[in-house]
């Protein structure tokens, strides 16, 4: 085991994880071959624990035996380590800072609020609904009339947010939020991204996400 440095790229991941999907999309956008290793999060592998001892979470990208953790850090790493292929981040420092800001905003807000949307009921759920609509409207404001968050090209912020579009159906059914109605530009952006090969290939079908969450709800005893 010691000294064994496996060449190439491996992605330790969990099929429905939007964070993992960011990495898969980035790898495909850069046309990088990699080995996908599905992880059992109920029974974590020795490889996962060894690769991410601090958090023991997916996704983890292992490159020539060295692990990189945290999805947005992985995406930036992919962009920087394989800089000869098309860039996900813009080259201008100010544009990069804006991209990082929005990706960070998405990271801080979307998943947590989304979780509260399906995990809670009554007043907390109403609060989560209100917050999610605000988050989506803020993101729609950042998108504006551009085809993608970064402008004409699919980039870092699109990669950061697009996996969550597979969750819109779940938000709709459990949280009673219609993205189409509240944020039509965002809904159009989701559709546009959905036409890309990397996105088509790597996003979970919305019905599958819904089934997964429905099962979790039963498991947690949330009616």
């Amino acid at each position, binding site marked *: 085991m010691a000294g064994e440095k496996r060449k190439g790229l491996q992605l330790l991941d969990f099929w429905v994880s939007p964070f993992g999907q960011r990495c898969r999309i980035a790898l495909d956008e850069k046309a990088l071959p990699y080995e996908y290793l599905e992880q059992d999060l109920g029974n974590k592998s020795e490889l996962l624990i060894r690769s991410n001892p*601090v958090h023991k979470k997916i996704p983890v990208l292992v*490159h020539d035996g*060295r692990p*990189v*953790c*945290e999805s947005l*850090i*992985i995406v*930036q*790493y992919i962009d*920087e*380590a394989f800089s000869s292929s098309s860039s996900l981040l813009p080259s201008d*420092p*100010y544009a*990069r*800072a*804006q991209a*990082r*800001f929005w990706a*960070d*905003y998405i990271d801080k807000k979307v998943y947590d609020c989304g979780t509260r949307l399906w995990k809670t009921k009554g007043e907390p759920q109403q609060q989560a609904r209100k917050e999610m609509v605000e988050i989506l409207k*803020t993101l729609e404001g950042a998108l504006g009339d551009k085809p993608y968050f970064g402008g004409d090209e699919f980039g870092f912020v699109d990669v950061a947010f697009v996996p969550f579009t597979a969750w819109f159906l779940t938000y709709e059914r459990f949280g009673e939020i219609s993205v189409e109605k509240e944020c039509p530009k965002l809904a159009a952006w989701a559709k546009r991204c959905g036409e890309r090969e990397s996105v088509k290939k790597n996003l979970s079908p919305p019905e599958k996400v819904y089934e997964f969450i429905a099962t979790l709800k039963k498991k947690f005893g949330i009616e």
Partner: protein
Amino acid sequence: MWASPMAIRVEWALRLKGVEYEYVDEDLGNKSEALLRYNPVTKKIPVLVDDGKPIAESTIIVEYIDETWKDGYPLMPADPYERAQARFWARFAEDKCNAALYPIFVTTGEAQRKVVHEAQQCLKTLETALKGKKFFGGDNVGYLDIIVGWFAHWLPLIEEVSGASVVTDEELPLMKAWFDRFLAVDVIKAALPDRDRLLALNKARREQLVSSA
């Protein structure tokens, strides 16, 4: 805002690059129109305004400074893997260590002992990134030192105000040694807020928080 650890990161980065800047203190209880205009999304400081263009979030601002004044003192490592590591630890420090420190400030007695222990575990994990090096950045102060550096000035102060003992030679020897090395760097020293003023502010805050807890 003079007492903000997040703002000081930006000052350290600018000073290391030798970039001139205007410091504008904000009253967070009465935010200026400029702040709200420059950072409408989170309305927080620090915000760096470069030629009228605003950048928010201190960790993002520091990378912006590094990329904009790229011929100056290097803040981020050059190697992509090292950069990923630096960003990972910065995120860990922000998400986990910051959250672990705050409870120390608002608790007393047995409850405080418990949260001190948890904070120490967190810092011990962070300390592994320091092993065998003078600074997190290696031989010289770098991005991660700038992000985590506020601990060096604020933690001893929080310890004094809260009556807790967190970063000790026994528990966190590498971190303690790094505190001293870091604070000895001229550029770092030059931007520190006045200790007495900070102490007074935090003493008052603690009294208020503990009494309302």
